[in-house]
């Protein structure tokens, strides 16, 4: 049985929305980072899906996904490092309290 492209896209959409919701509502900065990862992965699914079912099928999308994952890993490393630095300074990982730019 052939899974159609819309199913992939739907999964990606759901995943993206969950990620977006998490990124915009969660207090904990770690959860926010995880939610961002979810959104990135939703995009990855789209890339893979289009690389197979798109107008010009090829491996470009899949390779791109690999790159994305690599960069995302680096980004998470940096993000977590920043978080730890913040936590050391402010003793909190609560996103609400991270508004020094305003204060």
């Amino acid at each position, binding site marked *: 049985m052939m899974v159609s492209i819309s199913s992939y896209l739907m999964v990606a959409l759901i995943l993206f929305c969950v990620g*977006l919701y998490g*990124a*915009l*509502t969660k207090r904990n900065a770690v959860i*926010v980072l995880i939610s961002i990862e979810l959104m990135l992965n939703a995009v990855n699914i789209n890339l893979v899906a289009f690389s197979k079912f798109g107008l010009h099928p090829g491996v470009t999308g899949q390779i791109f996904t690999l790159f994305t994952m690599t960069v995302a890993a680096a980004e998470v490393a940096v993000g977590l490092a920043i978080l730890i630095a913040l936590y050391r300074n402010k003793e909190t990982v609560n*996103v*609400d309290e*991270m*508004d*020094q*730019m*305003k*204060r």
Partner: protein
Amino acid sequence: MDTLLHYAWLIPLFPLLAFIVIVSFGRQLKEGAALVGILLTGISFGIALLTFWERFQDGASNFKFNVSWLQVGDIVISMGFEVNQLNAMMLVIVTLVSLLVQIYSKGYMQGDERFPVFYQYLALFTFSMLGLVLSPNLLQVYIFWELVGVCSFLLVGYYFFKKEAKAAAKKAFIVTRIGDLGLFIAICLLFWWTGSFEYTQIFDSVALGKLEPWMITLAAILIFVGAVGKSGQFPLHTWLPDAMEGPTPVSALIHAATMVAAGVYLVAATYPLFIASDTALTVVAYVGGFTAIFAASIGLTQKDIKRVLAYSTVSQLGYMMLALGVAGAAGYVAGSFHLMTHAFFKALLFLGAGSVIHAVHTQNVFEMGGLWKKMPITALTFLIGCLAIAGIFPFAGFWSKEAILGAVYGAHRFDLLLIALLAAFFTAFYMFRLFFLTFAGEARGKHQPHESPAVMTGPLLILALLAIVAGFINTPYAPLLSDWLLASDTGNAISHIFGDEVAHAASWLQVVALLISVLGIVLAYLMYVKKKIPADTIPETLPWLYQLSYRKYYVDEIYHAVIVRPLGWIGFILNAFDKYVVDGLVGLTAKITNGIGALHSKAQNGQIQSYGTMVLFGLLVLIIAISLTVQGGGFFGSGQ
């Protein structure tokens, strides 16, 4: 050849120097400021006298010096100075009167807190008046003209803590400004038509007929409007009596002898313009004549010693204008001659009045009396001044008044002659009413009067001497001044139009004028010394007539109702409009901007997540908007 005339520019410079010195070191100088002022003005008087002497010599010629000041296109505007007959005479009058007034003020203003300031103003005034007199072009005249106005404002408002003085200073400034506007327009028009501010070029254009007759008339009348403002002619005379709020020496210097003479001087200096237009001359003559009789009739009833003198000034200035207005050489000479003699005896009268006020501490003549014994020098000099202004032989006023009457008679203007004679009668009457009330009879004042110090009586004696002898410079038998004045360019212009003849009063006219003056004096004597005629005959039989004169014909009230009040209302409305509409609009704009800003700054809460939400909503709105507007329905299209 290098003559002294080349150095006439030094004359106004010394008072300017005095002004600068006193401004810079007034606090340190204190009463020494008087010495600085007197010394420097004395030097400039010396130069003026020598200049006058040099110019008076046979064969002396005018001297004119010009430097180019501004160049606009082809037009060169120049600055410089000029010495001719008329202003050589004026230089002496101004410096002399100013010098005497400054000496006198040293006594009069003694102990005043702002003593150096007073001398500053006097020096600045002297400078501006001398600058005005020396100016060879109308632009320069206008600059000094305004400077003179400013000094008048400062000096009238010298006692600025007095409400009346403040109001009088403002009035003097504003009312003369009305006249100044006329002069300003005249200068602009003349510049437009002739392309020059120079007297000589303007007169040449007139003589060569380059200007239409109506242009000459218009320009002359507008210049006369300026003179009306400065010289206190009807209907702009109201500021002059009010200006008596200033210190008395100021009244002598500015409002009697020199500044108000600026108007007459201006008419005399631009005389070639006036004689080219019969209409303008007629206007000058009738305004002058009317002012002479009008002010004299007000002077009859005033109770304030300085106000009587102020109205007599207005009246005498009217005389000068009348003389200038009746065309011809005689009028020109008589006007200038009377300008000179009047400067002496009016300064004398004002300084005498100042001496009296200094002694009795009141200005109301009904609270004086009996001062003849207490203040012999003041009384004697004042008497001489009164005799001079009343035109009694052989005092200065007799000769100059006779010259004016002769000029009017010679021009066959019998209506004006009648007015002039009547005004002469009034003048004699009110001057001696003033004299008898002040010096004769019983003392009615509360203070113990005493003679003023020598520093004050000295100038009085000098002026009294001048009031006696100044007339002899121009008698019908030896018309020195007349011949000399008419040897000028202006004189040539006059004789070009009217012929050479200088009419002198027929001898019967002299006798009649003298009799009329004596009659006025006798009447005053009977009323106020012998009390044969009760002084309140007129107030009781014709109260409205008395009130009309005492209230100065209600001119001030009329102006107040017709001009001041409506202007006040307009000002009120415009002020309200500015405050509520214009300011309101500005305020509204500011408030709206502020509100929007406050709204936006609330959105900037520093929460990254709310920013993210906003971005998301923004994106959604964008997507919806695009899909609704883009052709074909896009994402939300109906599927067709």
